[in-house]
């Protein structure tokens, strides 16, 4: 994994390893009975275990210009490539997934920039394990910092190669050529060639030279512009086909019979009556019971006809959660080496403060639930599914069915969002199991209740902070312990002279995993609320206090920009309050200011306005960056004010939108986004970091409005 080696020094180890992506390390949910007969079918009878040459590679070898080579058995050999076919069409192959972050557009832009052609000429081929090179997954804000530079280099190298070929054909010096309107044109415009005229009849595969020069950001004309979303028309006309919209010939619809609670085991099942219904296929394999039928009416009838008994153990509920997370925690699983001495720092302090903060489990609730269409063809499996990790899901499928990865193809249609919630392949495996038993393609779409119950959650956590501060506002000691929620952004850009920061893993009663920003939200919440409390303790302004405790110029810049746009320090109406918070994660900086009003009787919190200032280096697409930052802020409103998973005895009590409150139109306040464009810095990702600032800012705003210091997410003022 080459991209791992290119980590910017700003990125810490936690980013590289992302330990808290628990779902990636969990045991597989299913382990189906090993089927020797099928296994032998795969491995004997003259079946070559090589992936057949894909069309792409075959065409490349037949003779095109381009670069790259493909070997799926050594999948991380090459990260992406650009392919020019003999018709002069340009296609970019990347394993990245489009789920609303508009990476399809941004990556096309950086390639178009280097090739000096319009964005419309670039076709992005994404997230198909047979066609695109290996990619770890679309998470961790990695596409722009890691994938975009690779594609820029590939495109620049391709341009130089094509230029040289065109020059040869035209008998001019390469330096005399430019690309104008997708043609290679010489200095006096007397000679020109199209892309097709250069690529036709060629047979050339090249690798990017290490020293290829890319266009400096200041010279960008296509990248850096607000190019509209690629394929936008298909989304507004309903034409775009998500996984859940796909149909295959003879396809059945699937359902999984779920137990009434988590961690249940199957006692008995009577499926005879259901099996008697025409067209219905029932699968029983271990604790898995599923069915497939040709239409939803038959499916529903068959499901009703199945009688199942499950055994569910007693399990702790939400009421005991935080106590349990602390009790079951490990001494430490990372966070960083202590700096200085906490004892010395405390001794030097004028005032001390110890507080505890909590964050609830929350759900991603992507509007498109998990969905998969699975189809078997001579022991080869193709699955269309909305996942952020197509190659990871391919491995899961290969493992579940005891077949080589070369016999599994995972294709990800542009997906109805994920937010870190679609890393795993449960639904794909279930659909594939049903399809294998039925001998027909099967589509399985999880219900909203299934999505809320059988996926995974953002980890809940307890964070304890003890600190010391001088009356002049200098923080002298900082002890920070995060129990269970994770280590992301547990370190900060504050210059605390004495600090001890630790993450303690714990035993989570619910299945937990990645979520947009991971624990950066929890750690920023605890840190920034605590900073606010310290500022209050020494009677200092919240912005001034933060500026005093950091030397990081980029952090200062976003904080000052947010404060300025917000009008920080202006007098507020009675019953209102304002708060501000700032932070850094995954190469980008955020500061968020919020003003709230709190109803004196009901204590209902209303957001009055929000300012978020964000800096992620050089901006690739301003409108989509704006949209992304705004979306993160809006999503943050849910975690800050309402979202919480309630559970008892393995039952998720909030498994519907009518019981799980997410942000709506009426929750919106005016949101001002201030984007700082640093053309001198490499572009970082933007999908996650803007989510972290809102909750602490709102907590501080509620404090100013009511005097209540809320240290638990979601923030709910008490009535008394």
């Amino acid at each position, binding site marked *: 994994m080459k991209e791992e080696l290119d980590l910017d020094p700003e990125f810490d180890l936690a980013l590289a390893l992302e330990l808290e992506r628990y779902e990636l390390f969990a045991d597989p949910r299913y382990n189906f009975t090993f089927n020797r007969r099928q296994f032998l079918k795969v491995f004997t009878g003259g079946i070559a275990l090589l992936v057949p040459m894909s069309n792409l590679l075959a065409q490349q070898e037949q003779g095109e210009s381009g670069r790259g080579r493909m070997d799926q058995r050594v999948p991380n050999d090459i990260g992406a490539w650009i392919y020019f076919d003999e018709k002069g069409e340009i296609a970019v192959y990347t394993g990245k997934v489009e789920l609303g972050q508009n990476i399809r557009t941004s990556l096309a832009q950086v390639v178009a920039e280097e090739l000096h052609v319009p964005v419309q000429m670039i076709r992005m081929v994404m997230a198909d394990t047979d066609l695109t090179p290996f990619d770890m997954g679309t998470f961790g804000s990695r596409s722009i910092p890691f994938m975009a530079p690779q594609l820029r280099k590939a495109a620049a190298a391709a341009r130089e190669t094509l230029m040289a070929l065109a020059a040869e054909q035209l008998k001019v010096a390469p330096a005399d050529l430019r690309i104008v309107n997708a043609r290679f044109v010489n200095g006096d415009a007397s000679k020109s060639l199209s892309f097709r005229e250069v690529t036709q009849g060629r047979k050339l595969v090249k690798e990017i030279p290490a020293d290829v020069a890319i266009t400096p950001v200041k010279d960008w004309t296509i990248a850096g512009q607000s190019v509209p979303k690629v394929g936008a028309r298909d989304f*507004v006309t309903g034409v775009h086909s998500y996984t859940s919209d796909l149909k295959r010939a003879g396809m059945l619809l699937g359902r999984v019979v779920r137990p009434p609670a988590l961690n249940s085991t199957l006692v008995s099942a009577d499926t005879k009556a259901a099996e008697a219904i025409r067209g219905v296929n029932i699968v029983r394999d271990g604790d898995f019971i599923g069915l497939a039928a040709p239409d939803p009416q038959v499916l529903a009838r068959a499901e009703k006809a199945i009688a199942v008994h499950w055994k569910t153990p007693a399990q702790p509920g939400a009421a005991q959660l935080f106590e349990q997370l602390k009790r079951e925690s490990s001494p430490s699983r990372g966070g960083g080496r202590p700096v200085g001495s906490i004892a010395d720092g405390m001794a030097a302090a004028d005032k001390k403060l110890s507080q505890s903060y909590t964050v609830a489990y929350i759900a991603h609730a992507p509007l498109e639930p998990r969905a998969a269409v699975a189809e078997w063809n001579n022991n080869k499996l193709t699955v269309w599914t909305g996942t952020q990790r197509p190659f990871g899901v391919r491995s899961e499928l290969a493992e579940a069915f005891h077949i080589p990865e070369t016999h599994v193809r995972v294709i990800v249609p542009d997906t109805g969002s994920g937010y870190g919630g679609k890393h795993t392949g449960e639904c794909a495996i279930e659909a594939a199991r049903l399809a294998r038993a039925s001998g027909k393609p099967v589509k399985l779409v999880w219900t909203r209740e299934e999505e809320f119950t059988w996926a995974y959650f953002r980890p809940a956590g307890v964070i304890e902070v003890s600190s010391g501060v001088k009356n002049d506002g200098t923080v002298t000691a900082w002890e920070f312990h995060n129990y269970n929620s994770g280590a992301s952004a547990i370190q900060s850009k504050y210059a605390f002279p004495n600090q001890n920061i630790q993450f303690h893993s714990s035993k989570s009663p619910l299945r937990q995993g990645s979520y947009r920003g991971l624990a950066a939200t929890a750690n920023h919440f605890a840190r920034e609320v605590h900073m606010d409390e310290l500022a209050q303790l020494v009677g200092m302004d919240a912005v001034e206090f933060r500026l005093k405790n950091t030397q990081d110029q980029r952090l200062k810049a976003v904080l000052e920009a947010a404060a300025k746009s917000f009008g920080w320090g202006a007098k507020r109406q009675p019953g209102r309050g304002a708060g501000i918070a700032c932070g850094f994660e995954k190469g980008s900086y955020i500061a968020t200011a919020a003003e709230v009003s709190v109803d004196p009787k009901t204590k209902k919190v209303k957001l009055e306005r929000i300012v978020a200032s964000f800096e992620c280096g050089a901006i690739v697409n301003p409108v989509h960056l704006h949209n992304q930052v705004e979306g993160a802020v809006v999503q943050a409103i849910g975690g800050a004010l309402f979202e919480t998973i309630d559970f008892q005895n393995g039952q998720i009590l909030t498994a519907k939108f009518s019981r799980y409150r*997410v942000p709506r139109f009426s929750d919106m306040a005016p949101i001002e986004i201030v984007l700082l464009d640093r053309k001198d810095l490499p572009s970082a990702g933007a999908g996650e970091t803007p989510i972290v600032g809102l909750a602490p800012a709102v907590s501080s705003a509620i404090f100013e409005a009511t005097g209540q210091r809320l240290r638990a997410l979601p923030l709910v003022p008490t009535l008394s």
Partner: protein
Amino acid sequence: MANITSLNVNGRKLPVNVDSQTSLLTVLRDFLSFMGTKYGCGESQCGACTVLVDGQMTRSCTMPVGKVASKQITTIEGLEKDGKLHPLQEAFIEADAMQCGYCTSGMIMAGVALLKKNPKPSRAEIVKHMDRNMCRCGTYLRIVKAIEIASGTSKEVRK
């Protein structure tokens, strides 16, 4: 239980044979292949399944098809006329009022229903009407802007 034998969708009478209690959403998607209308929750909470029934905003996931069998149903596929998008569809593109796009069909249908009965809605009226439509990507402010663009109450375009 009685079955229904046809449904009027986007100006065409289509044969279908389903139990009248089946949800309109299921009939549209699984029997008639109008896949632009989405499933999001099954309890009229998210609006992804919004269609028009005789011009009225309707959540198809909880609407028994028997109740609308004789009515005119319009789905997202029925908005485009002679290759020309509905002004609200154009406005969604202009305002970049989507990210993943999964809520977009329902948002546009809800917005079209609003503009039919109230061609110049105020911002408060837009919010009230649209409040049962969910966008998990958080593009609400852009959707409000798109409706304002389509209604002519906004001249400024978000960039």
